[in-house]
Each structure stands twice: as structure tokens, then as C-alpha cells.
């Protein structure tokens, strides 16, 4: 865990992220939600109006077997 603000100075990636977090914190919640929820078609996943699974393990297995790997819902590409 990194709770040291000084480390942001040493890590340029972290500094960039923290600048993004600070900018987001200045926006009202409604604006944050408006720009964060996007809508794109996800093949297979979006092709049924309802799905249910007895267990999360069953859902994960269904994702592995049925979704295109590039969607990122599996454990490997």
C-alpha cells in the first residue's frame, strides 16, 4: 500500500494518476457518473436480455467458454 504522498513525486505514473484522482474529486458526482458510464456493444454478452447463474463460479466458467477473449472477462487472453 502506498500512503506516502512523496512517493508520487518519485513515481511519474502514480503522479499522473493522482492528478487524475484530484481532478475527478473536484467534479460533482452527477458529472463523474455522466462521463464514466459508457455504452458499447459487447458481442455475446449483450445478446440476451436476461441471464442467471447459480454460483459465481458457474458465471465465470460461462464467460470463459462463451465470450470472446478480448472482452477480458476470462482469466487469460
Amino acid at each position, binding site marked *: 500500500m*502506498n500512503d506516502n504522498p512523496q512517493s508520487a513525486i518519485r513515481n511519474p505514473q502514480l503522479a499522473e494518476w493522482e492528478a487524475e484522482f484530484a481532478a475527478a474529486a473536484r467534479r460533482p458526482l452527477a458529472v463523474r457518473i455522466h462521463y464514466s458510464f459508457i*455504452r458499447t456493444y459487447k458481442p455475446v454478452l449483450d445478446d440476451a*436480455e436476461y441471464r442467471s447463474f447459480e454460483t459465481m463460479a*458457474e458465471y465465470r466458467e460461462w*464467460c470463459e467458454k462463451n465470450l470472446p477473449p478480448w472482452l477480458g*472477462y476470462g482469466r487469460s487472453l
Partner: protein
Amino acid sequence: MAARFDYPQAQEIREAFARHGVRYLFLGKSGAILLGFPDTTQDADLFIEKTAANRAVLIEALADLGFTLTPEQAAEVRRGKDFVQLKNGPFDLDLIFAPDGIETFAEAWERHVEVEGFPVCHPDDIIASKEAANRVKDRESLPRLKAFRDYWRRERRRRSGE
């Protein structure tokens, strides 16, 4: 395709679930976004307490929101499946009754954060569930999400010390 989830839809969930007394928490990236995490996602993930009474009021709240469950689908929700994905309503909704990486709803509720009346899982629980799920998309987002958790904690401490 359903409409994009936006602030009015979040408000509708909050109001309908409050009206019916549904016990729930925003989870996943949608929860993190409510906490201030600047990223994108496509649907709202709700962690629903898995009790018979809660599942019954959930079905009523979903009807209020405009989700058209068939009698068979409503029976499945009432019976208590662990994961239900709804794309038959005004927006997409994932209902999660037993998320990976979180032991019980009661424990998550103990730690939860309120954001403008929205009950949200603590960032530690959001991270724990993504670590346990261990999907490609989770592994990609975890380093930045962990950095956000650390920033969020620091800011929270700073504000409480002001």
C-alpha cells in the same frame, strides 16, 4: 440496446430501493466511480443481501424501475441465484448476491461508504472482489484502482483532520 446508465438512473435505483427497503451496495467499477475513481464502465453492479425478504422486495423495486421479469425470472431471483444479469430494462444491471472475495453482506455493510445517499462498498472490498475474480480486465485495472484507494484514504484522513 438499453439506455446508457447516468445520474438520473442512479437516483432512480436509490429511490426505488429505499422505497422498498432493499439492502444493497454498489460494487465493482461502478462503486469505485461513485467513490471518485475516474474510469469508464458499462453497467451498474449491485451487491444484494441474499435473504428471502430482501429478494422479495428487490423484485418489487425492479418492477418499479421498469425491469420486466417473467414469472420464471422472478422465481429465480426469489429462489436466490448468485448472479443475475438484466438487460431487459431501462438500463443494464448486474445483481450479485455472492461476490468473489467478500465473505458476507453484513461485513461489507459494516465497512461501506455513503456517497450522497448511495451505499457503496469500501474500496478494499471492491479491490478484494476484483482480485478474487482475477479476470484479465480486473488485473488491468487493479494497479490504478489500488492507487485510487490509497489516495482516497489519504484524502479522507486529511478531511477528517481539518
